[in-house]
């Protein structure tokens, strides 16, 4: 087993991996950028190395700096978390060259899955169901016409190099095809410098369901059940759950076996996720494979009772999977909320700043994976994911009710978060009835929120509390009014100026 693991990441996932290391008796090495000195992952690590400026390219994405720290600290493995370098085949290769184990798949497996069209070709050979269409770029308008006619309208045009909806066009009828193709191509050219566009059958109101797989380095591959991730905003997952309310054991077995086939076709090792689009008839189509640990891995952990990070580390250390497919027991239901530093009243714009008050939920069925603490200043330089709140229950209803209860206990003061969004989602009748697709959240947010008139009793309480806080004065004030930092200046800084001062101070290191 490894003696020391470097975690090439920050935030809640770095804390998650450090915890797994400590549970396994392995020392954890943190790396941090200038604005992350006070971050939780640095507090919790055994060793901590500064790696440069706030910009990720100067720090968390800098392969050379990270490998230098691995060498200096004597780390024998690197866990990349998700994001940053986690799906970077070049990094995986550089780790091999540096003689440090990359905890994840091989660079070759990443390459096989990295290009959408290449992955599609491999899946075609492996007999994996994917959305009907071309697995190569369209060569002519005539070819587009011919394929569209064969697979049937509506169709979707997609940029091969694409992402984020750029170079995408939904085409309802043959008459629209020509102008759409031209539009998609020029947008793809402008956005990615590559005008390659392919065509797929459009799946209307699909669900996004993904299958967790795990493969050791001795040829054993298992699936650990699916996750329903249809609740997305701006193509970003917001709420995930396991199992999917529409997947029964038979469908799970079929999807799982396909996912294992995908993994085997790519020579995949370690933890990975095969994403599917599911249409309204429950047909499922291969979408892509994520060659890393997912943000939403905890829901799978809760319904299977397994620890995916422990298993990742054991697999990377050369161990065999300690169980077979038959021994995987799925029990209960789990739902995850991704807590972001963003302002629901300002179109979910990011909201960094100082956390002045933090009340944490706990108790039965509640798991909290967090990277924040009271008094910490959320830097403005990274993804705004602060924490993940996961509720487990005997069934979906109980998971929802426990999560709702925990959301009401959870309080993050000083910055804006999307906590209220989850209360809104979890109380929605369609969500409760599990009527979801990838358009669900956009529709929900577009609905004119019937501004419920404030409870008069609550206004009364707020008024009296405002008076009492005023009478009590500074002695009743928390971290918002008290600077935390090496600075003992007597003046009351505003949150914002305190944030900047902290940033400056840390940048001085």
């Amino acid at each position, binding site marked *: 087993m490894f003696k020391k693991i470097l975690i090439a990441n920050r935030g809640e996932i770095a804390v998650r991996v450090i915890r797994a290391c400590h549970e396994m008796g392995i020392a954890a090495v943190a790396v941090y950028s200038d604005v992350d000195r006070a971050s939780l992952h640095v507090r919790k690590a055994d060793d901590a190395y500064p790696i440069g400026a706030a910009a990720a390219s100067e720090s968390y994405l800098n392969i050379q700096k990270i490998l230098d720290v691995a060498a200096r600290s004597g780390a024998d493995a690197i866990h990349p978390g998700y994001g940053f370098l986690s799906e970077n085949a070049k990094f995986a290769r550089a780790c091999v060259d540096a003689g440090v184990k990359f905890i994840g798949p091989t660079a070759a497996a990443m390459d096989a899955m990295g290009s959408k069209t290449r992955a599609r070709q491999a899946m075609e050979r492996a007999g994996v169901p994917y959305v009907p269409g071309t697995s190569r770029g369209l060569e002519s308008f005539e070819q587009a016409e011919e394929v569209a006619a064969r697979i049937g309208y509506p169709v979707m045009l997609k940029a091969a190099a694409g992402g984020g909806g750029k170079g995408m066009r939904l085409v309802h009828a043959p008459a629209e095809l020509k102008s759409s193709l031209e539009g998609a191509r020029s947008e793809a050219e402008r956005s990615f410098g590559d005008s390659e566009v392919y065509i797929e059958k459009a799946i209307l109101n699909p669900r996004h369901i993904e299958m967790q797989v795990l493969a050791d380095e001795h040829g054993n591959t298992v699936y650990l059940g699916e996750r329903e991730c249809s609740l997305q905003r701006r193509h970003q997952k917001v709420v995930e759950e396991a199992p999917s309310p529409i997947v029964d054991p038979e469908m799970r077995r079929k999807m799982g076996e396909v996912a294992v086939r995908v993994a085997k076709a790519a020579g995949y090792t370690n933890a990975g996720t095969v994403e599917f689009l599911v249409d309204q008839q429950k047909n499922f189509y291969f979408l892509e494979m994520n060659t890393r640990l997912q943000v939403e891995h905890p829901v799978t952990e809760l319904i299977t009772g397994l620890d995916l990070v422990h298993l990742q580390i054991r697999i990377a250390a050369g161990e065999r999977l300690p169980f077979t497919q038959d021994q995987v027991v799925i029990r209960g239901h789990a739902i995850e909320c991704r807590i972001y*530093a963003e*302002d629901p009243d*300002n*179109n979910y*714009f*990011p*909201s*960094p*700043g100082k956390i*002045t*008050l933090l*009340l944490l939920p706990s108790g039965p069925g509640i798991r909290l994976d967090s990277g924040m603490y009271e008094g910490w200043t959320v830097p*403005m*330089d*990274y*993804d*705004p994911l602060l924490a993940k709140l996961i509720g487990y229950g005997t069934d979906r209803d109980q998971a929802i009710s426990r999560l709702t209860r925990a*959301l*009401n206990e959870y*309080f993050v*003061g*000083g*910055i*804006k978060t999307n*906590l*209220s969004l989850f*209360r809104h989602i979890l109380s929605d009748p369609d969500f409760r009835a599990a009527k979801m697709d990838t358009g669900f959240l956009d529709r929900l947010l577009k609905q004119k929120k019937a501004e419920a008139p*404030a*409870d008069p*009793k*609550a*206004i*009364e*309480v*707020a*008024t*009296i*509390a*405002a*008076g*009492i*806080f*005023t*009478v*009590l004065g500074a002695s*009743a*004030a*928390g*971290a*918002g*009014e008290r600077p935390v930092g090496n600075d003992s200046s007597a003046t009351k800084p*505003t*949150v*914002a*100026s305190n*944030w*900047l001062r902290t940033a400056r101070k840390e940048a001085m290191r």
Partner: protein
Amino acid sequence: MTYDITIDGKHYRLDLNRPEGRWSCRLDGREVEVDAVLARPDVLSIRLGNQAYEVKCERVSGEMHLWVGSARFAAEVRDPRSLRGRVRAADDRGPKKLTASMPGKIVRVLVSQGSEVEAGAGVLVVEAMKMQNELKSPKKGTIQKILVSEGAAVNAGDVLAIVE
């Protein structure tokens, strides 16, 4: 002590005293039975009669917000005997400030000083956490002043421009 308290724009008068450590309270002249304990800084456990509430106080940039359960209220407290905190004019006349709602970096200035803008027209673009946010003019008028330039780091509450 008597306070004028504004909660989400509505005014209330609160008489609050604490003889012998117990709160005595009149809200708009009506007596209310109150029992309050500061559980920890910024967290009050309040009983009104026998109903229990946990109230959280958020203080950012000198503004106070109170959370009762999951409802958030903007509060302004004025001591009528003091001269501070006069009620502000809430109309559209006079210059209006455009302030940053969160820390970030100015990535674009969309209008120049002296130019005419419509209400809701974009004035500046601020970036934080890889996302850009367009700040819009609060009123129709003339850009009197732009106080920041592209590339500048700003804090929540900073005044960025003035429209008059």
